[in-house]
């Protein structure tokens, strides 16, 4: 079906007049409806019980906009929710900013907004404020999204690099590389058929359950860009401690491994959007694993290694399948353009 100018975003949709009002009332509000947003005030007022809050922001420029397992809208909610979750907080509210290119089809915008609404409801957060801008054709690639989020720090939870000690276990809640390999497989210039599916998911339900029921979690991070390799290296560099992980314990779907091998990527460096790495005291590791495995987002959870003494310089080492050892470097970037 041919689309007409009426089916598309115009520059005037960002102009503050009637078209903008239509865009907000007929496209944005219906997907996101909640009391705080309905007032359309200049700011949202939040009444929080806790005096300690976590506050974060992230921008989303993923290409393609729609991929197996999610889209830019779901990603924009889950990504920011996950940043709040791994900081030890319960996400409460999001701000949503859209930057839309002139000519972008409403059909796709509506799909993205619906998916933002769904993801927010599933994560028990509300989009309480937002902004929309339009830019000339060519000034953006279809749509860019920024979300900012506020979470209430869970009572008694205080996570940080400084708490990590030799002997701590490293827990991951499932398979790695799913998101990044899905994106690259769907990029226009590669196109290979596969059963790859992004792991894009909001982790707050699982992380809150873990933090409320165990005491030994010292630090958490979501291994997004740069993958597990980048996260483990950040932990090692920040603590001055070394890390040993076992290749046989790191969960990787065969289809992800096969795609990565074919394209020459190391799965350890590939992005995830529904995973956390938790550094846990040895006493709490099994409990942490059990809770995770009983949650839909942690069925494949594993203890993948330990924090160890540094002998020379802090580094991340992998024990390979054949019992050999090799270094896991901080990825040097440029692996995949625009994956999130």
């Amino acid at each position, binding site marked *: 079906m041919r689309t007409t100018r009426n089916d598309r975003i115009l520059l005037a949709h960002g102009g503050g007049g009637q078209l903008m009002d239509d865009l907000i009332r007929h496209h944005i509000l219906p997907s996101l409806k909640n009391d705080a947003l309905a007032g359309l005030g200049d700011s949202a007022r939040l009444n929080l019980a806790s005096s300690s809050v976590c506050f974060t922001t992230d921008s989303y420029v993923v290409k393609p906009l729609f991929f197996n397992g999610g889209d830019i809208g779901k990603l924009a909610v889950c990504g920011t929710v996950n940043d709040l979750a791994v900081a030890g907080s319960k996400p409460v509210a999001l701000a949503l900013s859209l930057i839309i290119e002139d000519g972008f089809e409403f059909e796709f915008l509506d799909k993205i907004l619906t998916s933002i609404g769904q993801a927010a409801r599933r994560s028990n957060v509300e989009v309480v404020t937002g902004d929309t801008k339009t830019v000339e054709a060519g000034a953006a690639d279809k749509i860019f999204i920024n979300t900012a989020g506020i979470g209430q720090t869970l009572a008694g939870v205080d996570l940080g690099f400084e708490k990590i000690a030799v002997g701590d276990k490293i827990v991951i809640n499932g398979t790695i590389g799913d998101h990044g390999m899905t994106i690259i497989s769907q990029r226009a210039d590669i196109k290979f058929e596969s059963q790859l599916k992004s792991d894009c998911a909001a982790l707050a339900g699982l992380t809150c359950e873990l933090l409320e029921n165990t005491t030994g979690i010292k630090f958490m991070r979501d291994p997004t860009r740069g993958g597990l390799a980048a996260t483990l290296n950040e932990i090692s560099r920040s603590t001055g401690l070394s890390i040993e992980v076992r290749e046989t314990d790191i969960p990787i779907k065969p289809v992800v491994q096969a795609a990565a091998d074919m394209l020459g990527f190391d799965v350890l460096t590939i992005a995830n959007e529904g995973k956390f790495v938790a550094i846990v005291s040895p006493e709490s590791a099994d409990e942490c694993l059990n809770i995770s495995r009983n949650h839909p987002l942690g069925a494949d959870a594993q203890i993948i290694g330990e924090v160890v003494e540094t002998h020379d310089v802090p580094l991340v080492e992998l024990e*390979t399948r054949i019992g050999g050892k090799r270094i896991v470097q901080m990825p*040097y970037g440029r692996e995949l353009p625009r994956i999130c």
Partner: protein
Amino acid sequence: MLDRINKAQKLINSACEALGRRIDIMEVCGTHTVSIFRNGIRSILPESLKLLSGPGCPVCVTDQGYIDTVLNLADRNDCIIATYGDMIRVPGKDHSLETKQAKANVKVVLSSEDALQLAKDNPEHTVVFVAVGFETTAPATAVVVREAAAESIDNFCVLSGHKLVVPAMRALLSGKNDNIDAFLCPGHVSVIIGYGAFAEIVEDFNRPCVVAGFEAVQIVDGLAEICRQLSTGKAELTSVYSAVVSEKGNIAAQQIVDECFEPVDGYWRGLGKIERSTLRLNDKYGQFDAFKRFDISETPSEERKDCRCGEVLCGLIDPPVCGLFGQTCTPQEPVGPCMVSSEGACAAWFKYGREKIHKR
């Protein structure tokens, strides 16, 4: 799998002990290089066994003259350069193809077919296919050259830099590096040329040649077979990849290469000019030869004096010995081709080895 590894490891250990000296085994395939690093194979071998990464990465062995030729062609407004992705970051005299990519006449292709399609889609431009690689990629180039001839796609041509593995191995043993004790021969190339092609190395130079696959266990099996031969004073041609590689190889692929190409003397990085080591389109398909079409004579260009890729490719030094390694030469800003390609020895040492960390 671990049982098989343990068994091979024991064999390697006892053979090395019996020999009582340093053993240099060279792999001549970038995929072997990466697999050796990724699986931490070096860490399970005795110290006296040294693995050398030889001229097995297509980007790495391509000489500076060829790269400068490509860069010169990229400056022409009437040309589109079609190249495999790992070539675009190789630095030339002043630029790399990547810096020229902004001009939009450099296109990354995933196959030779894509390059030919580019020619069909852009009849007003001449598409120059930067055809590099060993015997594995040459058949794919030959296929599209035949197709271009059959369909009279005259705006397509090939700058063939295809290289042959066996002449390079001969050159190494004929003076570049006499210390190589044995070769771990490439599985992919052997699928095409057959393991029989390495017989001349065994016969003329008395060095064991063992063809192996790319899984960790296949590589370790290959190394164990080499150690067994060395410790018993033998030099044989063996394939531990027999399920995939035959003695005669893929005859159909060899025929199509023979139909389109002829071996000529060619320049290699680090190895210099090697007789009958490079494939050039023959007279029958001469009209698709970019060297002829643009009247280019292949001349060697100066390599940077401080870049030691050439010595790395000959197995004379390990990458960290080079003063640029990990300092001014990194995968982000490579100086030499061995740091550009993910299959290059320098990139593998940088990514998986400890040395870079110690230099930091």
